[in-house]
Structure formats: structure tokens, C-alpha cells
């Protein structure tokens, strides 16, 4: 039984040492260690939560972006279509107008040509008339220079009159 009877001295020193160690370590070791462990764990948990949140935000942002993009694409398509329609319309209008203009110009030109032609014809007629008169005059002058000529002419005239 010798081994099973505790010695007072050892008990006493153990108690004192253990309590001293406990109080010293509690203040200078466990508290700072456990605090910083807790802080670190909290930091990690926070970081993970933040990352998760940011990820969520990112995906939301992405979906929003996609939505915006789709909208933009749609808008672009409509705009293009509208622009094309507008262009066609403008081109058509322009063509129409051009045609009209051209027609008008052609008509004018024809009119003018007709006029010019008429004027030219008139002039030619007049020229020819005056030329004929001149020629006739010259002929008459030549024929009527001699008396036989006058006579012949007179007879011819007389003939004509008779015939009428």
C-alpha cells in the first residue's frame, strides 16, 4: 500500500505548480492563442462568405450583362432593319424623283427640240423662199433683159391666164 498513499509534499507542490501554470498560461498563452485562432477562423469564414456573396453578385451582374447585351443586340437588329427600310425608302424616293425629273427634262428637251426644229424649219423655209425669190428675180432679170424674153414671158403669162 506504500505506493497508494499520497505524499503531502508532492501533493502540495503539484497543486501550487499546476495552479500557477494554469493562471499564467490562461493569461499569457491560451487567451492570445485562442483569441487569434478564433479571429482567424472568423476571418476565414467571413472571407468565404464574402467570396460567396461576390460570386453571387458576379453571376447576377453577368446575367444582367447578358440581358443588356441581348437587348442591345435586339435593338441593333431593329435599328438595322429600320435603317435598311429607311434607306430603301429614300433610294426609292430618290429614284422616283429622279425618274420624274428625267422625264420632265426629257419632255422639256423634246419640247425645246421641237421648238428649235420648228424655228429652224421656218428659218430654212424663209431662206429657201428668199433664195427662190432671189433666183427668180435673177432669172427674171436675165430673161426680161431681152425684148424677146419679155414677150415670151408675156405670152406665157397670157397663156396662163387663158388656162385659168
Amino acid at each position, binding site marked *: 500500500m*506504500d*505506493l497508494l498513499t499520497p505524499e503531502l509534499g508532492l501533493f502540495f507542490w503539484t497543486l501550487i505548480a499546476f495552479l500557477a*501554470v494554469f493562471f499564467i*498560461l*490562461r493569461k499569457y*498563452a491560451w487567451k492570445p492563442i485562442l483569441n487569434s485562432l478564433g479571429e482567424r477562423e472568423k476571418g476565414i469564414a467571413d472571407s468565404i462568405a464574402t467570396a460567396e456573396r461576390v460570386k453571387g453578385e458576379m453571376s447576377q451582374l453577368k446575367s444582367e450583362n447578358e440581358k443588356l447585351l441581348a437587348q442591345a443586340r435586339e435593338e441593333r437588329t431593329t435599328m438595322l432593319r429600320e435603317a435598311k427600310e429607311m434607306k430603301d425608302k429614300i433610294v426609292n424616293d430618290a429614284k422616283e424623283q429622279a425618274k420624274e425629273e428625267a422625264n420632265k427634262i426629257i419632255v422639256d428637251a423634246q419640247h425645246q427640240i421641237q421648238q428649235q426644229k420648228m424655228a429652224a424649219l421656218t428659218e430654212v423655209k424663209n431662206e429657201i423662199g428668199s433664195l427662190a425669190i432671189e433666183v427668180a428675180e435673177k432669172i427674171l432679170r436675165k430673161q426680161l433683159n431681152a425684148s424677146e424674153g419679155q414677150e415670151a414671158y408675156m405670152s406665157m403669162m397670157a397663156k396662163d391666164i387663158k388656162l385659168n
Partner: protein
Amino acid sequence: MPLLFCLKRTFFEHKTHIFAQNFRAVMSCKRLLSLLILVFGLSGSVISSFAQEAEKHENTAPEEKKGINITELVFGHVSDSHEWHLFSLKNADGTEKPVAFPLPMIIYQPGTGLKVFSSSHFEEWHKDADGKKISNEYEGLYIEKVMKEKVLASDGSKIYDFSITKNVLSMLFGVVILLWVMTSAAKKYKANTAPKGMQNALEVIIIFIRDEVARPNLGHKYKRFLPLLLTIFFFIWINNLLGLLPGGANFTGNIAVTACLALVAFVVMMANSNKHFWGHLLNPPNVPFLVKCLLVLIEVMSLCIKPVALMIRLFANMLAGHIVILSVICLIFIFALLNVYVGGGFVIVSLAFSIFMFMLELLVAVIQAFIFANLTAVFIGQAIEGDHDHDHVELSEGLAH
């Protein structure tokens, strides 16, 4: 033998604790089993250590002639001493001259007062008729060595021995190492850099104690008791390890030490016990009167057994381990006495076995520290528990017995 029993018990309890939390149905069975194992293991360890002792007493007579006293050797190593004995030199005339550090003696004698002197004053030893080793007298005191050393007054009056013995000194080494390691680790935390080296190793253990010992047993109040559990764990562990060093003291295998630690645990448990705990203990609800009387008696007994179990478990485990290792090593010398060559041959067997035992003891050192801390947490957990987790009380009670 005792060690194997204790180990078995140890592992079993450990396993029980970890797994049992999920299997309540198996609990009653396991409770009975662990009770059986406790009783069996304890009696096994105590009885077989006595058996060993008896065996050695028988062996003492023939061996003494040849100059080896195994009992003295083994118990000289495992029990406390007023000097730190390293080895003995043989003088030319055949007498042994011990090489030992004397340690300070602090004796309080009512009436005479405090006496402080070096243990080197006790240097002449002789044997009395009963085979006890008796030292010379100094300042009216002498040391009597049987299995343990006892300081006695020559006039037979009562004295109180507060000497710095081998165990106390070993503990002081342990305390210094513990304080140094922990405070230097704590300083690194203040620096707030990435953990490295020792800090990493400690962190794993600290987190293990926090998450596997404190949190499951103490619930949301764990923060309050965590410093105590950590201190208990590291205090026991470092001293267990120091005890394994060659020439080290058997500090945690001393019943005064384990009694002290168990007392601290018990006091903390009592100081924090709540109304619910005492209500269930002294007035169990929904139980007929006669059964209630019996139940209260059993519960009160179990309450007292808790610290005793804590005390004996650590004591028996560490003591048994030390005795087994020493015995295995002593086998070499016993065989060498028969025949030098047999002894030489046995060195291999003995060394192999003692290396194995050392490995086992390294494991036991940490397991016992863990179990002590864990059971402390379980006991405190029972005392502070509220009504909300009633299941847990029964579970941990099953473990405690």
C-alpha cells in the same frame, strides 16, 4: 500485464467515447462493459503490481547475495526520492558509491518550525532488522526507505515533508518547458504572421482539444473551461514524456500528483454544478421512493468515484508502464547473473521488447493526457448541463463509470 489491461481499457474508453455519442441504444451495454473493464483493469493493475512486488520479495533473498536487488531497483526508480540518483559506481572494496544530485529538504516540524537543508546530509545508510534502509540522523530527522522514502523524526513526532523531491524538480522542469513553449507560441500569434514550426504543431493539438474535447462535452460554455482543459492536457503530457526520459522521474505515475489533478477537476466540477444537476442527483424524477433511495445512494457514490477514477487511471497507467519497462530491462541483469552469455543473448530480446514498450508508452503518454482532459470535460459537462440535452447526461455518465 497491468499495462496491457490499462491500455485495453484506455483504448476502449476512447473508442466508447467517440462512437457512443451516436449509438445510444448500445449505451447501457457499453456502460456495463466499461464498468467491468474499469474494475477488471484496476484490480488487474493493482493486484499484478502487488504480485510483482511479492515475486520480487521472494527473489530478493538469493539475489542479494549476488548484489542485485530488483525490487529496490525498480521501486527506487518509480517512487519519489530526496535525491536525483543517476547511477552507482563500485568502489575497489566492493561497496557502491551512488552518483546522485542532492535535493533541498524542506521539513516543517510543529514546535520546532521549518528546517531547510540539503539531502546530502543523509549519506550513511544501514539496514535494520526488517530490511528497511535507514539513513543517519540529521537535525533530529532520518530517512526510512522501504518502497518509498519517508522522512521521520527521531523522537517520533509528526513532521510535514515539503521537500523539493525528484518528482517536484521534474515537474518544475516540465512547468518551465511548458511555460516557455506556450508563451513563445503565443507571442508568435501576436505577431499575426502565417503560423509555422512549433506553432503549427501546437495549433493542431489546441484545436483538437477545443473541437473534440471541449465543444462536444461542454456545449456553448466551452470557452470558460477550455484553458483548464488545455492546461491539464499539456501539463500531464509534458510530464508523462519527461518521465519516459532515461533517469527521469515517475511524476505522473505518483498518486499524489494524480490525486491533486483529480481534486482540481472535482473542485471545478462542484464549483460549476447547477441546480439541475443536483436536482437529478438527489431527487430523480418519476422514480418510486425505495428505488429513489437506492438511486440517490448510487449517484452520490458515483459522484465521489469520478475523481477517484480519474486519479487511479492516470496513476496506474503511468506506474505500470514504468514498471514494465524497468522490469524488462532488469531481465537482462537477472539472466546475466545466471550466465553471462545468456544475459548477453537476452539483451537483444529485452531491448526489442523495451523499445516496443517505449513506443507504447509514448502513445500512452498522450492518450492518458487526452483521457484525463476528456473525462474532466465530461464531468464538468454533466455538472453544468441544463434540461435541454438530457440524453447527453446519461451518455457521459456511461462513459464516466
